[in-house]
């Protein structure tokens, strides 16, 4: 009975989203204030019903109702309760329900939190969001209903959640990522609404900016979480595989990064406006494209869910409708947008333009590498795959101008900049960053490579120019310390975000150049040594978990004969699906990770063991966390805070 109520709530939410699209727009057309104002109520109601539906599905998971097909295939009574809850979004149907839930959550947030905006603008934005919701409700209801029953022959127990997904990383990663993906719909809706209205001004950029930033923060943290999860859970210690599905999340991120930068220009200087709108459309379109690629099963990927042509076709149609429609609107309306601001060739504007050009180039590289195999296959030339080296070499080239300009840009003034004034700060930074790079490599690198030199230098270049700029700005009017406390949040946000990027670059460079990976055959009692570390294989014990059995290896690690740690990598067999899983043991540190994963037991009783030494790999995730924190700081800036007086008014 409950499942039917859940589905019914979903149908009601679908109807409400249709109303939310049509009625306010009608109100604007017919000048009926009631209809315009109904947008907010409809949005909140819609959220209520989809939340009810989601809560019911979660409850059914908790109480192990295996009469529901989706639960029977993705859960099991032996699963701990928190994995039963996260199993809600562990597969296709539920993850789409999560998607619509988050979409209506964002819509509701817009409805509730933008009291300062004219009601007509909000109504338009909510109408666009309603249309997007409508599409996804139809998709869920028509092609992927999570509430379908297995009756009358329901199974006694479920087939269990994929063991790879039974992990804390998976409880957090999809909701975060989806918050980001879906969050770009708000930027998209703001852009479309502005185009419909034919009014694109700095105010529009100002409204849109915190929302875009919020989505970007979620996406950044979500991707970093996914990378971290892949690192410790998949058992081969990689942090990024250029897998099509990873690329699908990376493309909106690149577009989003370009967007937050160009929005800054649009807000402060009133230029690049039509370009910003195009970016807002692209960021969300790429989110949709990502969904299409993942959900249609058209791609060869480790993330692929069960494929169903009907689903692929539905999303493709929706994709064409949304992207085509918005680009058409853009083509008609964008020429009316006039940019007033003027700027010279050497100015902050051009610097940010360069940032955008380089990001778009990166975007095209990823897009090409992801879609080419598809095209190649569809035109009958056979299946191909595009290797990691392509992406790696393209990004190593692109990051050079990107990081160099990133260091310079914050020092450059808006409108025009006298080049000579920059010589001193840039020379100082160059000197400082070269010195630090050499010391750093001398201390941590086992051998010299040009790539490492370049990567580490770029990181420290960005760091030192960022600090230099902070000091310059702080000492402009005050002493250094008072100056630093007087800086606005958004200035700190910029500096911390850029520093986060630098930290990530250093992490990537060190990990890619100085990792040591050994696949070895070890019997109990054997040991292997490298990089001052000695790994001694002490024992193999039996393992008994709640829904798995297996073996656990015991390793003692010593560095220069000093005890460091005992590591216990596991090999699990999940009993329901008979699926083996590798649980790597990781000894984490600021400057290095030690990583041990058990391979398989060989016929003679020895084990194949994977032992890695990964220098600075934590920095790869710490950088994005800094970027996320920076994004939050920016949203807290005085300009975006709703003033007390406004709240009292409303």
């Amino acid at each position, binding site marked *: 009975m409950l499942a039917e109520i859940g589905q019914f709530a979903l149908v009601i939410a679908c109807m409400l989203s249709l109303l939310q699209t049509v009625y306010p727009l009608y109100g604007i057309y017919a000048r009926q204030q009631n209809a315009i104002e109904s947008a907010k109520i409809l949005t909140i109601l819609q959220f209520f019903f989809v939340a009810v539906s989601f809560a019911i599905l979660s409850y059914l998971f908790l109480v192990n109702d295996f009469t529901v097909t989706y639960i029977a295939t993705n859960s099991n009574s032996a699963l701990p309760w928190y994995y039963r809850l996260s199993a809600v979004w562990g597969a296709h149907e539920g993850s789409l329900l999560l998607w619509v839930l988050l979409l209506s959550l964002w819509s509701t947030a817009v409805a509730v939190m933008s009291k300062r905006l004219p009601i007509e603008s909000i109504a338009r934005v909510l109408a666009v969001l309603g249309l997007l919701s409508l599409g996804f409700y139809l998709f869920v209801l028509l092609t992927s209903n999570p509430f379908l029953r297995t009756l009358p022959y329901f199974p006694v127990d479920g087939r269990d959640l994929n063991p*790879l997904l039974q992990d804390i990383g998976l409880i957090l990663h999809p909701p975060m990522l989806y918050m980001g993906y879906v969050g770009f719909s708000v930027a998209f809706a703001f852009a479309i609404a502005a185009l419909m209205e034919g009014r694109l001004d700095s105010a529009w950029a100002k409204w849109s900016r915190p929302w875009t930033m919020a989505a970007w923060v979620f996406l950044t943290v979500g991707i970093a979480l996914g990378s971290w999860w892949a690192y410790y859970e998949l058992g081969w210690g990689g942090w990024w595989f250029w897998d099509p599905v990873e690329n699908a999340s990376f493309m909106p991120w690149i577009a989003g990064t370009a967007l937050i930068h160009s929005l800054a220009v649009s807000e402060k200087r009133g230029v690049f406006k039509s370009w910003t709108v195009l970016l807002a459309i692209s960021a969300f379109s790429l989110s949709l494209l990502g969904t299409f690629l993942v959900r249609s099963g058209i791609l*060869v990927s480790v993330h692929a869910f069960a494929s169903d042509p009907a689903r692929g076709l539905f999303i493709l149609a929706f994709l064409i409708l949304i992207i085509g429609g918005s680009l058409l609107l853009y083509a008609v309306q964008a020429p009316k947008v006039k940019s007033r601001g003027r700027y010279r060739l050497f100015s902050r504007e051009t610097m940010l333009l360069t940032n955008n050009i380089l990001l778009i180039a990166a975007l095209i590289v990823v897009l090409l590498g992801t879609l080419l195999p598809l095209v190649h296959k569809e035109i009958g030339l*056979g299946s191909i*795959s595009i290797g990691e080296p392509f992406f790696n070499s393209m990004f190593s080239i692109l990051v050079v101008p990107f990081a160099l300009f990133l260091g310079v840009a914050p020092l450059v003034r808006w409108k025009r900049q006298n080049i000579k004034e920059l010589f001193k700060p840039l020379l100082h930074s160059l000197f400082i960053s070269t010195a630090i790079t050499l010391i750093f490599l001398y201390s941590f690198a086992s051998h010299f490579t040009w790539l490492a030199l370049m990567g580490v230098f770029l990181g420290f270049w960005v760091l030192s120019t960022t600090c230099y700029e902070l000091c310059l700005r702080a000492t402009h009017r005050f002493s250094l310390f008072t100056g630093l406390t007087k800086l606005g949040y958004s200035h700190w946000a910029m500096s911390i975000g850029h520093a986060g990027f630098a930290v990530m670059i250093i992490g990537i460079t060190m990990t890619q150049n100085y990792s040591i990976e050994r*696949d*070895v055959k070890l019997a109990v009692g054997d040991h292997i040594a490298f990089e001052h570390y000695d790994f001694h294989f002490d024992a193999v014990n039996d393992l008994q978990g709640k829904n798995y059995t297996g073996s656990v290896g015991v390793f003692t690690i010593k560095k220069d004969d000093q005890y460091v740690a005992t590591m216990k990598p596991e090999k699990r067999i999940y009993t329901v699906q008979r699926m083996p899983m*590798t649980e790597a043991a990781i000894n984490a540190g600021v400057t290095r990770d030690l990583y041990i994963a058990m391979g*398989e037991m060989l*016929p003679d009783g020895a084990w194949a063991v*994977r032992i890695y030494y990964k220098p600075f790999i934590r920095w790869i995730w710490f950088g994005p966390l800094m970027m996320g924190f920076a994004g939050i700081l920016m949203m807290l800036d005085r300009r975006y805070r709703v003033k007390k007086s406004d709240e009292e008014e409303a």
Partner: protein
Amino acid sequence: MNPRRKKRLLITSALVVGLSLAVGLVLFALQQNIDLFYTPTEIIEGKKETGIKPEVGQRLRIGGMVLNGSVKRDPESLKVSFDLIDNGGGIVTVFFTGILPDLFREGQGIVAQGELLNATQVNAFEVLAKHDEEYMPPEVAEALEGMDHLKTDKK
């Protein structure tokens, strides 16, 4: 030409040159990193679509089912070899050094990435098995269509 036009011409041509250079570089890098997918039968008889056989030394991906009883291990190291078969009946031997994925078993569909050693042997540097019971790469599924899956591991 007046100076303004001249400036524009310069900027435009610089853009065109820069852009074509960039595109050329990207395509070149792409060319180096495209790995065609073959089934064992296609390695022996040439690709279904074009009839072209892979050259010795070429990087490629191969997908098929691991033939029962074909997995041979070197007792001293992590060297392993196994035969791949598909519904066309061709058999290709794959050599690999390292740790096989968790879901690698005889009678399973897998994909290997590597270099062609000679007409029927591939030296793999990466072996991928499907990630759960449901999912199989579409190409492998196609190559195995109609074959008997030996699901010895299933209840």
